[in-house]
């Protein structure tokens, strides 16, 4: 059985469209990020979260009113939302404050939140979970997260440059950075909290995207050795077509797992799964349209990859002018 059989799609013809599309998404993401902001998870923003299980589910509005009325300096920064399965009757309340740092007083805010709900007579409830993070933790984490990301990209850059060509490494890393930006854009569109789990997913996407790119580059490398008479653009297009079946099947099965995680993985893993879903889609797209395209741009004037003997056939790429120039140079 074949999903794709001997396809001859001209992927490189679409590279400019793809690049414009990517920029549109990324710029829109940045715009949303600046206007609406990217909501930070508790680990990064600091604050107090209380998960309370009620005997009788209260309306979100009533809990919010209770906090507005009884909680000092409440207001718009207070988040109240239902948590987990509706049958669990759980409500998550998040406030930006924490008790003053020093000794054991960090949890003072938690008691204040509990008191506020109790005062509002919303029925019996038990606190099933709390999380309190002082703001210093978040500052620490964002710094480390960024450095881990930059370091892992440098590591991948070095490895691919060692195993392939430097231009391949550049293509793979730019594609990965692209994926991170696009995923961030979608996190901003859908206003998902940036939590540690989401960061883990982002780093996984980094690995996944490079994985995808390497498989394609591997085929390009192999074909370049075998087909010395073809131009780089032709070889890249051929390689993309040869690996298309694998690309789609792998992305498809990874998507299946991620969607299962999104639907059934529960509250804590939802942000993780959402990030994975977006990351898998953009990772696959970028391997085909961004990474490969960058390799062809980079090597436009490189004689090593130019067709050595055969006259250029323009059918595959439609970029005749550019290739003619290269043929002359060689």
């Amino acid at each position, binding site marked *: 059985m074949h999903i794709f059989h001997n396809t001859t799609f001209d992927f490189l013809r679409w590279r400019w469209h793809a690049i414009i599309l990517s920029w549109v998404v990324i710029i829109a993401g940045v715009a949303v990020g600046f206007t609406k902001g990217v909501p930070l998870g508790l680990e990064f923003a600091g604050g107090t979260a209380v998960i309370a299980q009620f005997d009788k589910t209260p309306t979100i509005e009533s809990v919010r009113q209770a906090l507005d009325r009884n909680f000092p300096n409440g207001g718009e920064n207070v988040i109240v939302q239902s948590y987990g399965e509706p049958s669990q009757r759980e409500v998550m309340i998040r406030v930006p404050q924490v008790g003053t740092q020093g000794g054991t007083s960090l949890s003072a805010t938690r008691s204040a939140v509990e008191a506020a709900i109790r005062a509002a007579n919303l029925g019996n409830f038990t606190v099933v979970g709390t999380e309190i993070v002082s703001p210093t933790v978040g500052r620490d984490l964002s710094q480390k997260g960024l450095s881990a990301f930059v370091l892992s990209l440098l590591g991948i850059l070095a490895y691919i440059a060692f195993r392939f060509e430097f231009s391949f490494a550049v293509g793979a890393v730019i594609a990965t950075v692209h994926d991170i930006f696009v995923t961030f854009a979608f996190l901003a569109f859908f206003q998902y909290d940036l939590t540690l789990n989401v960061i883990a997913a982002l780093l996984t996407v980094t690995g996944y995207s490079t994985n995808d790119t390497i498989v394609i580059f591997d085929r390009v490398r192999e074909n370049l050795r075998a087909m010395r008479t073809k131009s780089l653009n032709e070889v890249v297009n051929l390689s993309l077509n040869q690996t298309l079946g694998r690309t789609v099947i792998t992305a498809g099965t990874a998507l299946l797992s*991620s969607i299962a995680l999104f639907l059934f993985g529960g509250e*804590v893993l939802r942000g993780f799964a959402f990030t994975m879903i977006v990351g898998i889609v953009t990772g696959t797209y970028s391997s085909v349209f961004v990474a490969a395209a960058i390799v062809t741009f980079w090597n436009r004037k490189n004689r090593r990859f130019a067709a050595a003997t055969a006259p250029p056939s323009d059918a595959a790429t439609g970029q005749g002018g550019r290739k003619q120039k290269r043929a002359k140079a060689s």
Partner: protein
Amino acid sequence: MQKNLRWRILITVAVAVVFGLVGVYPIVASSYNLPMADWLLEKQLKLGLDLKGGVHLVLQVQTDTALRSETEAQAERLREALRTAGTNVGGVTVLSSTQFRVDGVPPEQDAAFLQAAADADANFDRSSRTNGAYTFTMKPNVQNSMKAEAIVQARQTIERRVNELGVAEPSIAQQGNGEQILVQLPGVTDVDRAKGIISSTGLLKLTLVEQGPFPSREAALQAFNNAVPPDLEILPGRQDAGAGGGLGSTVFYAVKKAAAVSGRDLRSAQQSLDQYNRPAVSFTLKQDAALRFGNFTQTNIGRPMAIVLDDRVMSVATIQGRITDNGQITGINREEMIDTVITLKSGALPAKMDYIQEQTIGPSLGADAIRAGVTASVVGLFLVVAFMLFYYKLSGVNAVVALILNLVILLGLMAYIGAVMTLPGIAGFVLTMGIGVDSNVLIFERIKEELEQGRPVKTALNAGFGRVFLTLLDTHISAAIAALFLMQFGTGPIRGFAYTLIIGLASNLFTSTFVSRTLFELVLGQQPQVKTLSI
């Protein structure tokens, strides 16, 4: 080839059996009450806090306070040395946590001063003389080693206290820049008590009461015209209600800063009762301290003495006669008694600690998370298996066997190295599954291509596995590079994710190439001539 194949089958079966025994069997056995060796049970994969419920705390060690107390002690020793040597100086002031200054050293006594300061020179850099003053700054290497020591001591003290609390499988580790201590207490629900015990400094002092009790801090300050002498401090305490029972209201005492006996001199502490049959803590002192304490009490007969714990006056009693090696802390309730014994026994913390993160996961929340995680994994696995069988037919069976063996190895290895299963760990499982499928897809697609070019089945298989192995190596290594950095950066749960991923990558490389190929050869080897392959 046949002999080679036999070995490969043997290795595959051995791996499946060993990892199945370590990783899967204990889980099955404990849910169905099957017999199992104890050492296997011990190795069983442990659940993380997010799945089991419990308390997760992060403490920041204020290493500065450890440096400050060392600087203060050094300044105090120098003051003492100068007094015994008869050298009169203007004053000794502590400037910061690492600096103190000696003012007004008379020029004619300079040599005597320097001799007295020789002790301080070991750990402090002495500035040159300016206007009769010397500044002592703690040497940078001493600062670093003292900080490191304070953190290690803090961790060990917390470990002892948590063990006294009787928590099963606690986890205490340094994290972050090393000045943070992570404490995980599975199954604990009373956060506030746990926090109190873990971070109370546990510093015991026996010292003279100069004046008091006063009804308020203001009243105490007024007694000294708002200028408390440098060798005194005002501390809160509780009035002893005496035989009447209950505990009194808060009062304030002016006590001597320099303690006759401190926590370091303690030999043991145990629960006891006071003369009114109320809870109390009895303690005994070490030998050299007992001698010192004996002399101290002898010279101060008739004066009130305070027992101070963590800057709170626990009890005040008039010294009736020479006391040598034991004492009693009274005026506490039952729980305070238990907790005080725990903190005194475990020793004092060398530095102050602040809580910077606190998380409690109720057992029901953890159970929900397990259910959700397992459901998601099972659904994901089912979808992927169904697809592989549908798309690759009989060869799909091969892929599914490799995939499941991969998960068995992953479980076994995690159990063996004592890794903890967390929610992000489950996510790591799902991802490993994805990578495993990808490897098989890569190989199968390649075999298909080779078959289409008219190669015989066996040649196609060899070409497929041979070529793709390099690709797999490249993809796995680069994924492992990303995971390694994740591990560096990660706090608990994320590190669990990265662990799972790295182990999964390694076992996947084994199952998708070695095992899968062995299976192909095992099936095809039976037939003399292979014309077609179900793929």
